[in-house]
């Protein structure tokens, strides 16, 4: 494959990054997708659109998020100088809000009066419910029934924010099924409804549009690093589920070819069996949810459920731009397993006083693997894309810590 002059020109007019992406949707949705593409094409060059986005990003979300030198962690690992891009400090606790803010401004511009979304762990659902409350729009969130049970605090958050949560029991009752159900809703309510997809996947123009909204992460990080160190970083590390936080950090650096870029997938219990969510390392190209991309699937083209300790990473696909970046070799994709992420989670709590989400704990696990071998003048940015409040129950369970029991002891 030949190397392009720029890694930032995609997708083409058909929504393709190489062979990945596209518009694999039912005819009922096709006119809506084309309409969205037109409207996004008009909003993107409009300064008024970005003025409103930037104002809310600053005053409501709390951007720019800090670029923080993790000194104790750096010392502990004894090699590369490690910075965190702290998107976990955003309102609602993760990078998801960047995208939701952008999409709801577009929905309003298009005159849509009802918002739907899918959610896995609930972070995108909470971010969507939040912007819907902000603009007074009714919001329906599809969430796998299995996830509803696992993520009770986020379900309650969404309720508080006024969203209607629809537990999805079809299929296996997780994120991919929630996405199917959201698409079914959209096919049914074509006139008034805007579908806020939570990651840089789905039919064109979603992958490019979500990337553009999330690129605020990398654009800020680049400027902050130049101010702080007077040069670009040597490497970037981010976790990958659907891949929007990673793409947001990576995209502004893609043409800076001296910057090594690494995406970390969820290796679950390991890649030997089916209990992982590493679509790029353990899957093959296929077509699902409107785009061609790497998927976890069997030899008959049936989709396999992903597994990860982190509910935000267990999606069997990945954004199509990542698939392309992998095939052309611009970005390296690796994986971290459940137990490694759990170790990194605790390491971060202990050395930095930051409780990270289990998603970026995967990125951190890889940082912990490679940083010790790198020279001290090697500068690395890791995307701390979410905070771990939502995960304390899962982590407690894995560490054999009985929360109910502690409560019992302290009240005695």
């Amino acid at each position: 494959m030949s190397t392009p002059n720029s890694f930032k020109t995609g997708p083409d007019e058909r929504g393709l990054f190489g062979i990945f992406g596209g518009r694999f949707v039912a005819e009922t949705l096709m006119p809506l997708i084309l309409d969205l593409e037109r409207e996004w094409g008009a909003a993107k060059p409009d300064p008024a659109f970005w003025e409103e986005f930037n104002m809310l990003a600053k005053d409501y979300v709390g951007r720019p998020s800090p670029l923080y030198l993790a000194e104790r962690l750096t010392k502990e690992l004894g090699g590369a100088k490690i910075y965190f891009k702290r998107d976990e400090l955003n309102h609602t606790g993760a990078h998801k809000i960047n995208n939701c803010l952008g999409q709801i401004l577009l929905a309003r511009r298009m005159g849509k009066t009802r918002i739907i979304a899918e959610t896995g762990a609930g972070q995108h659902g909470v971010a969507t419910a939040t912007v819907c409350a902000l603009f007074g729009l009714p919001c329906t969130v599809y969430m796998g029934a299995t996830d509803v049970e696992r993520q009770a605090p986020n379900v309650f958050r969404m309720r508080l924010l006024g969203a209607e949560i629809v537990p999805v029991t079809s299929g296996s009752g997780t994120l991919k099924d929630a996405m199917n159900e959201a698409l079914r809703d959209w096919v049914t309510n074509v006139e008034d409804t805007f579908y806020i997809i939570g990651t840089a996947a789905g039919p064109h123009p979603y992958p490019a549009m979500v990337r553009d909204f999330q690129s605020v992460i990398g654009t800020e990080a680049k400027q902050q690093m130049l101010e702080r160190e007077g040069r670009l970083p040597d490497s970037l590390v981010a976790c990958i589920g659907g891949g929007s936080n990673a793409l947001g950090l990576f995209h502004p650096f893609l043409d800076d070819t001296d910057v090594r870029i690494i995406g970390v997938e969820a290796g679950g219990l390991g890649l030997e069996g089916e209990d992982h969510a590493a679509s790029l390392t353990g899957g093959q190209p296929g077509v699902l949810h409107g785009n061609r991309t790497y998927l976890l699937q069997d030899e008959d083209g049936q989709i396999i459920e992903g597994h990860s300790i982190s509910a935000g990473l267990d999606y069997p696909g990945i954004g199509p731009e990542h698939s392309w970046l992998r095939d052309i070799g611009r970005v390296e994709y690796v994986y971290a397993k459940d137990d490694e992420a759990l170790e990194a989670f605790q390491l971060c709590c202990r050395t930095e006083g930051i409780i990270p989400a289990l998603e970026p704990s995967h990125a951190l696990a890889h940082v912990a693997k490679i940083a010790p071998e790198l020279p001290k003048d090697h500068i690395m940015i890791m995307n701390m894309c979410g905070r771990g409040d939502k995960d304390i129950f899962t982590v407690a369970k894995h560490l054999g810590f009985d929360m109910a029991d502690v409560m019992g002891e302290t009240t005695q």
Partner: protein
Amino acid sequence: MTTRIDNKFAQLKAEGRAGFVSYIMSGDPDMDTSLAILKGLPAAGADIIELGMCFTDPMADGVAIQLAAQRALKGGQTLPKTLEMVQAFRKDDPDTPLILMGYYNPIYIYGVDRFLAAAKAAGVDGLIVVDLPPEEDDELCIPANEAGMNFIRLATPTTDEARLPTVLNNTSGFVYYVSITGITGAASANQKAVEDAVARLKRFTDLPIAVGFGINTTEQVRDIGSVADASVVGSAIVRQIENNLDDEGRPKPELVKAVLDFTKTLSQGVR
């Protein structure tokens, strides 16, 4: 080139009646039962058969067909097995048009050229692939047409007149009009809206128009058949399979007969 589908619509025109198209999911609830139903469909009044190819993520289907796909998958159904079923059907029935309907990924993984050759050899006449709009014609539609197989496109209430020529381009056999915005087996079709839509389509194409999604009863088959060239029923037939399973999900002895009797009743709407 004339296909079985073209011949069937010519024959229906000569008889002066609309056609009845019946859908079942291949391998639902298991391959033997499904094949027995398939073989019985022509005698139960099916002029054209749509055979579903199961997929784990049927994003345009309602609950009835989702469950049918899950039953088929659980029973071990695969795309090669579906092609085997077509072959077995074709041995006894050289005339009834058979269309495979489903989603793209299993075909993509099987390999497009390999699939077209195998489907053609098995006796498949046409394809309906829900997640391949005209924008993705290079994938399967054009190779299918070149292989002499009809690629039947869905037109929907959201397909406006500016877009219709795009949708009709490369379509052959017939046009499948989706009578509602929504998924299979959900809302009921509105007769007046369907009538207007079919009239509009007829201004753009000479191909026969079949109407589906939201048709559940003999009366609806009759009403739709009075304005279109064919009525399609899927979910209502598939529900008969669901209703004739025992507590373990195995077919009750009377399942095949119940499904075919129900199909026969529906087909009376165009006779």
